[in-house]
């Protein structure tokens, strides 16, 4: 009985440099989001974008690695990013309860 693996067909169609360039652009966009936005949650979204960009690099390079080291590392990065998002959101909720805002420029108690 023939088994179809659709992933096999598209494997290795794209040169590596495209992945790396896309990852660089994603990282820069994430950095821009982190710097420009003033809502704490949108800043978190930017952090997620940057983590994903790094992950994309790892995965793209692990195509050439028989041990799949990059993919394993990427897997752990995903887990740690999820944990980070959870804790950061809990902190954002606490900040909102205390200051009644999530605008990062208004949370400046330590400056006063």
């Amino acid at each position, binding site marked *: 009985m023939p088994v179809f693996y659709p*992933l*096999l067909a*598209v*494997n*290795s169609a794209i*040169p*590596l*440099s495209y*992945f*790396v*360039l*896309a990852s660089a*652009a*994603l990282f820069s*966009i994430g*950095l*821009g989001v982190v*710097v*420009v*936005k*003033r809502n704490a*949650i*949108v800043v*978190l*979204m930017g952090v*997620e*974008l940057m983590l*994903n960009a790094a992950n*994309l690099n790892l*995965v*793209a390079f*692990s*195509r*050439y*690695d*028989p041990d*799949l080291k990059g*993919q*394993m590392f*990427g*897997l*752990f990065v*995903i*887990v740690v*990013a*999820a*944990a*980070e*998002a*959870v*804790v950061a*959101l*809990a*902190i*954002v*909720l*606490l900040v*909102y*309860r205390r200051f*009644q805002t999530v605008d990062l420029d208004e949370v400046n108690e330590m400056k006063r």
Partner: protein
Amino acid sequence: MLTLGSAVVVLLSRNVLYSAYSLLLTFVGIAALYVLAGADFLAVTQLMVYVGGVLVLLVFGVMLTHRGDAQKSVAQRATEPNVVRTNHGRTLAGVLVAGGMFALLFTVIQKADFTRNEATFYDPITRVSTVPDVGIHLMTDYALPFEVVGVLLLAALIGAAYLSSIRN
């Protein structure tokens, strides 16, 4: 390129929910790129963790931390569109930092010249599926990180539950 386009929308949109939805599109696009790079297990994980978990969490965060206009009454607020907006600050610095970062990365990538290595050294390894390999590695070579990550997740879970249960 869908990925990059929607990431740009995350950057440019002032509406937080539009940002969140375009972030969803970005994550799906990244999962597609994983598939193109031959990492099927990671693509499915990406879909489950990011699209199913992190994004829902972010949207919940938007919902819980939004405060409507306090001056208006509830009836007034109910009639107008419920838009959560975010302001942009330090736009010039952001453009400078992000553009500089991209320029730096771009020059480095141009100088690295991956294409030649690709042609002469290796061919990409073709696999039927990465799931068996990933599973075997997780249980043998990466058993310790696997356990550590499990403990980390547990700690994050307990920590988040504790933090969000503090009442003043």
